[in-house]
């Protein structure tokens, strides 16, 4: 089963792209239609929401720039899924790894705020990576030792990481200036990732693109990538060939967690400027679906991350203009995904 999913994650790259694009469009429209129907039943006006979204997102540069802001963490969390999937590993822990990256990066920002920017930001980046990596290391070790399946362990840890964050912002790191709303003290300017002009597009986007490019290069051009794909194809044969399978499993999980941790670091450093609860509207889970839909291809990840950014702005618009909870946007994603699953599922053996 794991191998099936891993195959799905990277078996769909490139050919017949145009026909697939048309089908994707049809699926998207069907999903939007069904979602609209549900909203109408609930007495809302979905068409207005769709129109508002289009105007907001494509009507001016700021709205469009916000799409790139949303894409940034998704690029990173989907690489965090795609990389281990090549070995047949299912990392569903992007959410927890995201929070731990944000947490450790914050620890750095608060511990040595007097550092100059050229020292502090690399330090925080490193800490963000380490935080996520450590959080994924445990499931990796448990999997390599054949003790616990990484799917269930990463899912369970997703619920622990936000509690650690809450513990710190309600306790040791609680900012004195805001007594009503628990959050960490604001970061110094040196701890803020630079943004582009007046937009919120930040350096994290570059992190995302670099990680994606590295992932693509690693998989297709290096010996490590070849051996990882070999493990994904047949782990038993790889062991007999002398490939250090356990080592690869541990390393892939840790690196993947680190990449998701970078997403968390970017959000606290560039967007929030402090550690807050509810940092992620499900970026970790969305990253899983992005990677899965993209079939692990680098171009696919960019396209799907963009689409998910658009969908999640529909959720924002619905929340702002019609008082629909943001979580309802999950329904739209689920509808589209179910259509994709039902359409694709039977084709592959």
């Amino acid at each position, binding site marked *: 089963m794991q191998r099936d999913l891993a195959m799905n994650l990277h078996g769909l790259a490139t050919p017949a792209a145009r026909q697939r694009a048309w089908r994707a469009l049809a699926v998207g429209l069907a999903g939007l239609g069904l979602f609209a129907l549900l909203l109408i039943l609930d007495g809302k006006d979905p068409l207005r929401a769709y129109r508002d979204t289009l105007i907001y997102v494509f009507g001016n540069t700021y709205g469009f720039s916000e799409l790139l802001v949303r894409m940034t963490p998704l690029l990173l969390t989907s690489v965090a899924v795609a990389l281990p999937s090549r070995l047949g590993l299912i990392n569903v822990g992007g959410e927890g790894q995201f929070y731990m990256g944000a947490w450790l990066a914050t620890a750095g920002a608060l511990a040595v705020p007097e550092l100059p920017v050229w020292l502090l930001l690399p330090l925080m980046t490193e800490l963000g990576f380490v935080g996520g990596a450590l959080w994924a290391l445990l499931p990796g070790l*448990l999997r390599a030792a054949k*003790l616990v399946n990484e799917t269930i362990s990463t899912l369970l*840890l*997703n*619920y622990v990481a936000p509690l650690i964050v809450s*513990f710190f912002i309600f306790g040791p790191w609680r900012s004195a200036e805001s007594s009503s709303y628990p959050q960490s003290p604001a970061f110094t300017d040196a701890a803020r990732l630079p943004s582009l002009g007046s937009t919120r597009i930040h350096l994290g986007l570059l992190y995302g693109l670099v990680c994606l490019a590295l992932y693509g290069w690693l998989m297709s051009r290096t010996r490590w990538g070849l051996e990882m794909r070999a493990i994904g194809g047949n782990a038993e044969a790889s062991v007999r060939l002398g490939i250090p399978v356990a080592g690869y499993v541990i390393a892939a999980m840790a690196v993947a967690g680190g990449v998701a941790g970078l997403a968390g670091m970017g959000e606290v450093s560039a967007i929030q400027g402090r550690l807050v609860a509810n940092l992620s509207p499900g970026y970790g889970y969305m990253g899983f679906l992005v990677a899965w839909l993209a079939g692990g291809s680098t171009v696919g990840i960019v396209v799907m991350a963009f689409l998910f950014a658009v969908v999640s702005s529909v959720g924002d618009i619905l929340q702002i203009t019609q008082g629909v*909870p943001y979580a309802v946007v999950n329904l739209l994603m689920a509808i589209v995904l179910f259509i994709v699953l039902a359409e694709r*599922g*039977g084709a592959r053996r």
Partner: protein
Amino acid sequence: MSASFAAAALVGAILSGTSLLYATLGELVGERAGIVNLGLEGIMLIGAAVGFAATSLTGDPYLGIAAAALAGVVGNMLFGYVVITRHANQLAAGLTLLFLGFGASALVGRPFIGAIITGLPRYGGFDALVWLAVPTALLLYWLLFRTRWGLAVRAVGEDPAAVFATGRRPELLQYQALAVAGLLGGIGGAHLSVALTLSWDEGMTAGRGFIAIALVIFAKWNPLWAVVGALTFGGAESLQLALQASGADVSPFLMNMIPYLLTLVVLVFWGLKRRSAAPAALGRTFFGVE
């Protein structure tokens, strides 16, 4: 520790373990038929929201529970169509069901945030669902291990092709198992909102669905062991509440981690024993026999 403290913890264990037990039993039946449903958390959320909404609308908590059970079945049938008839990957479809649960429950529950309901009436300190929880486990044990239907369901989980060869339809049995799973998952979710908290909050199941999935492994796919597992984890949860009520100075966030970490520790110990009781065809897609 005083006696009243221990008694309160035990009562709490039974109360919060009940919802876990129903959910665990549901997942267990599905997995016996070879289907892993990672969307159990979503089904529980839908059950909690629908149960609360229906109770608020009709004023009858039993109708609320029934509506939640029905909603759970509907959700699982959708999942079933995708993974059984369309042969989609179970893990991806399960996560999609989780998303569906997040979204649908937020939509359904939204108008009822802050609504006041009369919860399930209690008889001798416990509501009807608590009293029925262990009998349900016994019933499932009987169904799975003492009836022809149960034998067929377990056989599907081990080797669908063999079931096909005996003239039964593996897909039909899987649908039936998933229907039972959805029914129990919906009830498990509704027990939280209609009997315990008497309120609806977005995401209120807080990962109980995933703990239930882990409990199935703990229970070695046996309904009777599921009772022990659910009580243990309900106990962990209620101990944490009782400690807070007694004024212990421990952060609630740290104590909220206990159930998840305990689950992980238990899984490690089970992994150490290296004896898997998992159905052989668990998670595999059955493509029929040509």
